[in-house]
């Protein structure tokens, strides 16, 4: 993660096998429910397939529609990369690995039971995964540190949803019009 944001994406559109491979790897390595952060690292930072702005609007749209935010984000990015077939390839790839792994774990559990050592290892992986989530959020924040308005909106979101645990949808419905209004104003003053 560099200081600079990803504002341009690479010009060639990835082929379906490349999309499938990228999202399969994403699925089997996204521990601790941090699909969005890991997707940012793999798809935006490393491959430059989508821009920061496209990623962030996918995160927001994926969270306000029903279903898992990570799966929804995958559908949205897949759709950007290769329309219906891209979305299908990305989602099937994302889910098939974890499906096999979770069943293997269940079968293993039925045979040998659960060891405390495994719990400890998983806690450690989860802690590192949480670190990745925070680092991603902070990187995206730092990217627009020059603008005070968006910074305040981010802080308000963290305070309401993360700290105070208010229901997410009403919070977004309140903050979104303000934030979009700020974006329109910023654009107008940039044009003038």
């Amino acid at each position: 993660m560099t200081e600079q944001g990803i504002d341009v994406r690479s010009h060639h559109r990835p082929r379906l096998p490349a999309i499938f491979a990228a999202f399969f790897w994403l699925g089997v390595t996204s521990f601790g429910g941090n699909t969005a952060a890991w997707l940012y690292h793999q798809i935006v930072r490393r491959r430059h397939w989508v821009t920061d702005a496209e990623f962030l609007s996918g995160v927001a749209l994926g969270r306000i529609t029903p279903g898992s935010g990570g799966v929804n984000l995958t559908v949205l990015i897949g759709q950007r990369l290769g329309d219906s077939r891209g979305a299908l390839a990305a989602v099937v790839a994302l889910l098939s690995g974890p499906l096999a792994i979770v069943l293997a774990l269940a079968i293993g559990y039925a045979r040998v039971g659960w060891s405390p050592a495994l719990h400890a290892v998983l806690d450690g992986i989860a802690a590192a995964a949480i670190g990745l989530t925070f680092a991603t959020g902070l990187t995206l924040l730092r990217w627009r540190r020059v603008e005070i308005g968006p910074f305040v909106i981010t802080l308000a979101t963290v305070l309401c949803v993360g700290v105070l645990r208010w229901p997410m949808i009403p919070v977004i419905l309140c903050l979104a019009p303000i934030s979009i209004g700020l974006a329109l104003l910023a654009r107008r003053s940039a044009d003038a």
Partner: protein
Amino acid sequence: MPDDTRTLLTLALVFVPLSLLSIGGGASLLADMEYQSVTVHGWTTPREFADLFAISRAAPGPGTMLSTLIGWKAAGWAGAVTATVALYLPSSLLVYGAARLWGRWRGSVWHSAIERGLAPIAAGLILSGGIAVLRVSPGGPAIWIAAAAATVLLLCWPRLHPLALFAAGGALFGLAGAIEL
């Protein structure tokens, strides 16, 4: 209708509505899933359900793979696939439709204003997600310290591969656990 087919149909009928009702993440799903699989259909005992939940948390992947495990308990491999598809397909179709509609306005003033306006909220949601996971982690202060250390490491060394950090975290906690035992 054979019993197997009936079970698969029931799984689909249970998970399709959950897919469309689960706004705002998977946490609200858990109570519904438990009610359906333990009380209504008897696919698992309460004890088995708790075990399956623990297993689903150990696996990688987005959101909950708990539906997969409930389907597996109820009707084997076919049940696992049916429950997974039933939980993720309807919501995916919905968001795909939204994406198509949204893409139609690409290039307009409103499209870019909304995209720019949602960006800081999305960054806030990512950070809030980290806080939420931290809050439900069973590991206590050790997890908090390790998560903070990982955050600092990743911000200071952007080239550090997250998987290396995952491995280090797992090894460190595994070792500490072994010494404690």
